[in-house]
């Protein structure tokens, strides 16, 4: 199992990707991810871990390094009471799964063992399985492709092939 990292409401993208490190690479930025809220986060999070958060996760600036930093650190996905819209789109575009969960996710505590099942929009915890709000199929497909860019690569390849067949 992987661990849950629990955050409060209104985590903003300045906290996820601080402006002063924006000019450097994602490796540098990721080391400062969420340090204003939890100085130990970047050094303790492991691949496969899941972020569990309150309302309006990812509010603020549209910088997608906010989602990219989490992906770089290996975060398997985010389950929150709600997301800020731009962040939610950015995360999906980068292939980082983001799900909205109901009251049940409020019972998850920092360090709890959890497992995120993206295909079936479920979060398994030691005390049971939590059903999350499913994403539309085309977005699940985009996440499975690895994000918008590989998704478009497939589309353009398909379009080129179709044009080729017609010629």
């Amino acid at each position, binding site marked *: 199992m992987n661990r849950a990292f629990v955050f409060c409401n*209104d985590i*903003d*993208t*300045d*906290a996820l990707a*601080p*402006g*002063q490190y*924006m*000019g*450097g690479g994602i490796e540098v930025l990721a080391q400062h991810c969420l340090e*204003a809220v939890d100085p130990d986060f970047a050094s303790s999070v492991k691949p496969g871990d899941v972020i569990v958060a309150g*309302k*309006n996760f990812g*509010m*603020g*600036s*549209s*910088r*997608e390094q906010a*989602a990219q930093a989490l992906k770089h650190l290996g975060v398997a996905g985010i389950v929150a009471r*709600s997301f*800020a*819209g*731009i962040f*939610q*789109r*950015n995360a999906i*575009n*980068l292939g980082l799964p983001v799900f909205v969960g109901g009251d049940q996710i409020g019972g998850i505590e920092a360090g709890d063992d959890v497992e995120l099942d993206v295909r079936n929009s479920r979060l398994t915890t030691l005390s049971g399985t939590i059903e999350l709000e499913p994403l*539309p199929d*085309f977005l699940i497909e985009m996440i499975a492709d690895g*994000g*918008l*860019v590989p998704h*478009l*690569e497939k589309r*353009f390849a398909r379009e080129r092939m179709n044009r080729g067949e017609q010629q």
Partner: protein
Amino acid sequence: MSRPTTLAEKIIARAAGRASVTPGEVVTTKVDLAMIHDSGGPRRVEPILKRLGVGLFDTKKVVLISDHYVPGDTEEGAAILALTRAWAQEKGVSFYDGEGICHVVLPERGHLKPGMLVVGGDSHSPTGGAFGAYMFGVGATEMAGVLATGEIWLKVPETIRIEWSGTLGPRLMAKDMILAMCGKLGMDGGRYQAIEYAGETVRVLEMQERMTMSNMAAELGAQAGLIAPDETTTRWLAEHGATDLPEAADWQSDEGATVAETHRFDASALEPQVAAPHSPANSAGISDYEPTGIDVAYIGACTGAKYVDLKAAADIIRGHTLAKGVELLVAPSSKRDQERAERDGIMKVLEDAGARVLPNACGICAGYGSARLGEDVTCISTTARNFKGRMGAKSSMVYLGSPYTVAASAITGRIADPREFGDAA
């Protein structure tokens, strides 16, 4: 007779090539215009376009504006600006370099029109809603997708109508209105739906004031912050070089259109608003605040340093000097607004009082530049966001207020009620 629809639905239906759309359905729309800046723009999108092996969907529908790394006084910033300039030249897109902040420059140069669907590579893109355009922000990867395809997917939003009645008192501005909305509705009150600001108070606001309200639809968590166009809109746009303007009457919410929520505010009961650290949602009337000393007063950003904001600050500061120990920083939103403020003597008032004038760029509002706030600094700012550590050190404390309030605070050295200074406005 077709079902009455909202302005947001009309724009999205037109862009999706549909007769009508229904809130909640996912549609793919054509993008009429894409705006990018130096931070999220060329340096981030070009590698993706290369990987996809495609060019821009339409060079005439892309506008590039440098504002984040201006003036390029670091090695890193200079390199990003150089890359941005080279890309602009190679692609042949409209490019405004060091002319000001994208959300202010875009309409100022006549690029926006009512009824357009516009995607911006920045979270304050809802500013375009002030012109009756459905404009919203996306990240760099999504922007690369837009530049490659000319399309974007949208979940058709519900409309949240926010209706203002009554007349604003002296020394009150749109900034006070939007802070009051943030205080009441919270930063997720907009639920990533479309807000439409309406009512007599909104109708009498000039364009740059409307821009302040639409700009901070971002802080309400909405996707877009629309104001239906009227004569004020079309006249302003025509004066700023927009051509082939549509009839304002064609881009209105129909009477009886379904809205998800209606919120009502009374402007005549409003007092100047201040948002305490570290959220715009911590907004309250100024009379709720204990005397709070400040070190820095910041007039800047797309939200709070347009001509109308500079003028408001000068109206308070004229004949005064800065309080001892207070630094006043002014970063006019655009070069044109600064030049106009220079012609009108507004910049002189600010400079004579001791203001330090910074470049026409996002600057410390976005956490960039050398003027970032130091440890334990208390600042009152005309900007949109006071998140912990955004404008500088994590220990700095940022309060948000209108240009009137920030100016009054600069000359008294504490968070001050601008109504203490004369009664004009």
